[in-house]
Every structure is written in C-alpha cells, then in structure tokens.
C-alpha cells in the first residue's frame, strides 16, 4: 500500500500540483495567466473526449458498457439526495442544494489524473468511461435544484432561473459540451482521425496536465486561504470536504463490488463518485441558484476534496479495490 502512495507522490503531475500549493504558501507571485489556464482546461477536455470517442469506435459496445454507463448516471443522481440531507442543517437549504449538485457531479481533472495514474501503473481501463464521466456532469445539477425547490414551503424564491433555463444551463455548459462534442467527434472520425491528431491528444497529455495542475495547486491553495470568509464555519467545510468524498467513494465501491467491475474501470467510477465539480456546477449554480453562497461549495470542492482525492484518494481507493476484488 505504501508503494502506491509513494509512486503517486513521485509522479510529475502531482508534484507540480504540490509546487503550486507551495508557491501560495510562501507567498510567491508564481501564476499561470488565467486565459491560458482556461485554455489548458479546454485542451484536457478535448483530448480526453477525443481519445474516449476513438476508444468507443474501436471497441464492441456490449451490455457491460450499458450497465456501467447506467451505474455512473445513477450514482450522479443518487449522491445529491443524501448529500443534501447530510449538510442541510448546517449549510441551509440553498447551500446544501449547491453542495449536493457539486458532489453528484464530477471533476474532470481528478478523472484525468486517475487515468494518468492507471497508465503509469499499466492498468487497463475502457474508453467508454469518458462517456460515463460526461453523463455524470449534468444530472446532479437538476436533482440538486429539485431538492431545493421541494424543500421550500410556499412558492419558491424565483430570483434565479426557471427549470427550463436550468436544464439548458446544465447541458449547454461549455465544458460539458466540449467533452461530449469531442467524444462524438472522436467516435465519428475513429482511428483514422486519431492518427491525424494523436501527438496533441496523446503524447502531450501528461506534460500539459503538469502545467495545468501547477495552476490548480495555486488556485486551490488560494481558496483554502479564503475559507474564513464563508458563512459556514471553516471546521465544517473541512469536515465535509473530507468526509463527502469518502462517503461517495464507499457507495461507489459497493456498486463496483456488487457488479464485479474490473480494476481500472472500478477505480475510475469510484474517483468520479468521490470527486466534486468545480467548473460546470458552480458556474450553473450562480445562474440557477444565486442564493447559494459560492464561497461555501466552491472552496470545499476545490480546496479540500480536490487535493484530497489527488494526493490520498486515488491510491487509497485503488488499495481498497485491490482488497475487495
């Protein structure tokens, strides 16, 4: 087990994440320009989506695929229910709904880091897991909002968006669209298409991930420093930011154990369940549920759960899968 943590800790992407954190700790002015950081995140979605689509084109679509995609979608719709009730008393209904949506959805960067972890360990995983990830982006947003509206007695405060706008927002979010679009394009253009872009899509991937995680380390550490300004107590944010990934991972572990999902795919599903969104969901929430305070759910997901999953979660979940299977 130690060796898993150790090899994770010496992988370049993780080390660059830690370098970013360190930069903020020593108050360095190191910074990845924001437009470039945004582009790097587009690149990661583009590359992972394209590769996933080509993998689907190359593989036979079997019942197992359908089962796994269903499992992923179900996870993303179920998680918000218990998360909402777990945190509602302490966070209030609006923040609880946003938190529920955040953790029902996924973090694409945690996912790609898990993939590079699997690749480094030469463990197989299926391309259609990218589709699973894409499917998990949106449902949680809608479930979270429904939970909020149901919890309001009397007519809901409708300062936000209507249900239709909300669904639109959750499906048309730029990052959701790009990953789904790249997946479909990879699928259509197949191995012949991949041959044209494989250098960008495959060989550069981990290097760019290093640079992006450097920025994520900086941003996450800054949010950690700001934790105090939220209306919820810091200790509560820390507590739930560590506990929610673990709970969600356990739920997913039970599922992958029950259905005997193979090692690589199992880890990816668990990581998807354990991770929380900090791109699609927070952006959608500002429009659909502006009453929710972003300095509650965003730093919790970005500054606590994200680093936890990256540094400890991925090898830990992997270890647990090895024990179970």
């Amino acid at each position, binding site marked *: 087990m130690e060796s898993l943590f150790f090899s994770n800790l010496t992988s370049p992407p993780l080390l660059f994440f830690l370098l970013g954190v360190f930069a903020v700790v020593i108050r360095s002015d190191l*910074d990845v320009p*924001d437009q470039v*950081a*945004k582009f790097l*995140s587009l690149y990661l979605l583009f590359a992972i989506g394209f590769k996933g689509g080509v993998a689907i084109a190359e593989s036979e679509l079997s019942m197992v695929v359908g089962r796994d995609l269903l499992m992923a979608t179900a996870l993303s719709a179920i998680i918000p229910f218990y998360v909402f009730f777990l945190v509602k008393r302490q966070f209030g209904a609006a923040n609880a709904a946003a938190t529920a949506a955040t953790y029902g959805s996924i973090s694409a960067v945690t996912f790609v880091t898990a993939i590079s972890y699997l690749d480094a360990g030469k463990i197989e995983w299926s391309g259609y897991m990218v589709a699973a990830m894409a499917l998990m982006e949106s449902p949680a947003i809608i479930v979270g909002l429904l939970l909020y509206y149901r919890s309001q007695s009397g007519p809901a405060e409708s*300062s936000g968006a209507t249900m239709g706008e909300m669904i639109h927002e959750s499906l048309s979010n730029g990052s959701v669209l790009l990953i789904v679009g790249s997946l479909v394009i990879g699928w259509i253009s197949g191995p012949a298409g991949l041959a044209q872009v494989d250098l960008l899509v495959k060989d550069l991937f981990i290097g760019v991930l290093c640079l992006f995680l450097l920025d994520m380390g*900086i*941003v996450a550490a*800054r949010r950690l420093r*700001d934790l105090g*300004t*939220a209306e919820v107590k810091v200790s509560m944010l820390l507590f739930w930011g560590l506990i929610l990934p673990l709970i969600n991972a356990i739920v997913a572990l039970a599922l992958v154990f029950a259905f005997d999902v193979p090692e690589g795919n199992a880890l990816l599903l668990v990581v998807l369940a354990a991770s929380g969104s*900090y*791109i699609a969901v*927070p*952006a959608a929430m*500002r*429009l659909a549920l*502006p*009453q929710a*305070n*972003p*300095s509650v759910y*965003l730093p919790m997901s970005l500054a606590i759960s994200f680093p936890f999953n990256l540094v400890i979660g991925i090898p830990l979940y992997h270890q647990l899968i090895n024990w179970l299977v």
Partner: protein
Amino acid sequence: MKPCKRIEIVIEHPLAPRIAKLLVKLGAPGYTMIDGASGRGDRGTRHADEITGISSNSVFIIACDDAELIEAIIEGIRPILSMSGGICLVSDAQWLRH
C-alpha cells in the same frame, strides 16, 4: 456636449450576460463592458484566476441621458445586485455628441 449620467456597475462574471440582456431590453443607448476584474467586498475576495469565471467581476459603463431610463436601469439592476453582490455608482458627466 450634453449632460448625462454615467452608470458604473460591478457584477460577478456569470451574471454579466443578464445585465447586458436587461440593458438591451430596457433600450439603453449602449454600454461598454470590461471583463476579468478582480475585487473585494462583503462576499470576500474575487481572484479572477479561475477557469470557471465565477470568481471574477465584469465592469459595465453606461452613458445615459434619459432620466426615466436611468431610473429603469437602476431598478432593474437592484435585485440582481442584492442577490449576488457587486456595486452600482451613478455620477454626472458631459457626453460628447459627435
């Protein structure tokens, strides 16, 4: 030169399209928008460093010389600001008619 009001709004980036839409709906003569501003207020620091854009501000500048329209803009903006934070300043200016 014509006297007018200069309205300046600072709003979080995700809500900027709503302000723009509101201005168009109300028939404002125009606006200028600067993106990517950071800031600090009651809701903590907005770093303008994030890929989501939810931690950055947009600054709107609106020149308007129609008193009723100014009133309408302010009343339209007020609930958005109450909900999400930000500021709105109104000052006197002279507008160069070209």
